[in-house]
């Protein structure tokens, strides 16, 4: 059973298809682009947020360089250990464990502890406030508390509570996007640690001035420096600082700090720490 349309149909479509096939064949030969499949694979594995924490402008770039150099010391802080393992497996090398870092706010000056200056009524943004005057808190080193940094965090790790930024350490990937967002520079990056003591203050004012401005401020009284057996605390510019590499988490400093709201903090979720202190 051959209908009258059969032959023309088959012939015309067949020939068009043939021509097309010829063209495509020719093209694919002529314009073949060599692409390392490994890059694509790695690219798919990476988080794809292009946050720049690895030091490359994009995840794709990171993947390319990694494939090229097979440099096992390259790390993606966002992906963490899991990702490092995966990348290592794919490439057949052992990747360095990325030292997970986290953002830490060096300030406890919330609405209760830090004393206020005049009420701020301008644009609700930390930069705008600090550009207008010292800011709503007397301490000019403090967390201004208007939350400009929050929008910069891709991972929803920051929230504002009682006039102070709280960082959710579980969510923070250490991408450092918040650092340039803050006008007073109270956010710093530190390695993630189970137990860690930090001096949660950023004030370089002299003790008296600090004390006047804030109940949680470091007054540079030297007590913690003296009690620390590991020489892990130094005072620079009227502010104590714990050198994390040396700190053994013995907790002695926290015992001796004389400030009203202890400026040394056992670093966990701030709120929990506070509750602990209260009880």
């Amino acid at each position, binding site marked *: 059973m051959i209908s009258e349309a*059969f032959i023309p149909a088959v012939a015309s*479509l067949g020939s068009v298809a043939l021509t097309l096939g010829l063209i495509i064949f020719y093209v694919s030969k002529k314009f073949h682009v060599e692409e390392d499949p490994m890059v694509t694979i790695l690219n798919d594995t990476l988080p794809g947020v292009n946050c720049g924490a690895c030091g490359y402008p994009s995840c794709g770039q990171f993947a390319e360089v990694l494939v090229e150099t097979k440099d096992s010391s390259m790390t993606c802080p966002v992906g963490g250990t899991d990702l490092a393992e995966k990348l290592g497996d794919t490439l057949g090398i052992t990747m360095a464990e990325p030292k997970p870092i986290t953002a830490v706010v060096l300030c406890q000056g919330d609405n209760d502890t830090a004393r206020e200056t005049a009420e701020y009524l301008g644009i609700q943004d930390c930069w705008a406030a600090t550009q207008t005057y010292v800011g709503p808190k007397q301490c000019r080193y403090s967390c201004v508390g208007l939350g400009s940094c929050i929008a910069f965090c891709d991972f929803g790790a920051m929230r504002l509570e009682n006039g102070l930024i709280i960082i959710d350490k579980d969510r923070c990937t250490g991408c450092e996007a918040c650092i340039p967002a803050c006008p007073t520079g109270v956010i710093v990056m530190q390695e993630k640690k189970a137990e860690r003591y930090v001096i949660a203050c950023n004030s370089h004012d002299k003790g008296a001035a600090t004390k006047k401005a804030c109940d949680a401020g470091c007054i540079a009284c030297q007590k913690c420096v003296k009690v620390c057996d590991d020489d892990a605390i130094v005072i620079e510019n009227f502010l104590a600082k714990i050198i994390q590499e040396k700190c053994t988490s013995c907790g002695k400093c926290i015992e001796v700090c004389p400030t009203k709201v202890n400026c040394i903090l056992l670093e966990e979720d701030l709120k929990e720490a506070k509750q602990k202190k209260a009880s």
Partner: protein
Amino acid sequence: MRPITILTIVGILSASLLAVVEDLTREPIAIAKEQMKRKAIEQIFPFPFDSLRTVTTEQTTFYEAYNQDNAIEGIAVETSTEEGYSGLIEILLGVSPDQKILGYKVLFHRETPGLGDKIDKPKFKEQFKGRTLENTNWKVKKDGGDIDELTAATISSKAVANAVVKGLEFIKEQYPKSSAE
């Protein structure tokens, strides 16, 4: 070379399959088209009929419906006008052998939804039944005629009336005898 072969094969297979399906459906499609027409005519004729004869003239197409005894029971004619509110309106007009209107169906129009498109609603169509060229003043009531115009769509109403008149006149030309009877 494999890609080319494969693509060609796919093409040939597709074409063959299509040709076969086309062959299979050619008849049903023709029947369906016929059926559509018949259905449309059935809608305007209030009675069942047995067979249909399609006549194509230079001006238009019309259909004669016969009963079992091969007598004409009704005539359906395609007629149109350009005078609608938005131009062309095409209708299929059904008349009885004594050239009384049996009904009509709008085949195509672009009148405003909600206004002019009521020309295809039973309420408006009803009034045409039984009218002839002679027994009616084919103007709208507003202009002193017999046709109830649609509110706010006088133009569409007039256009339909004109198209109907055109159809009736055409039939009168085609069947001068029967009208004389």
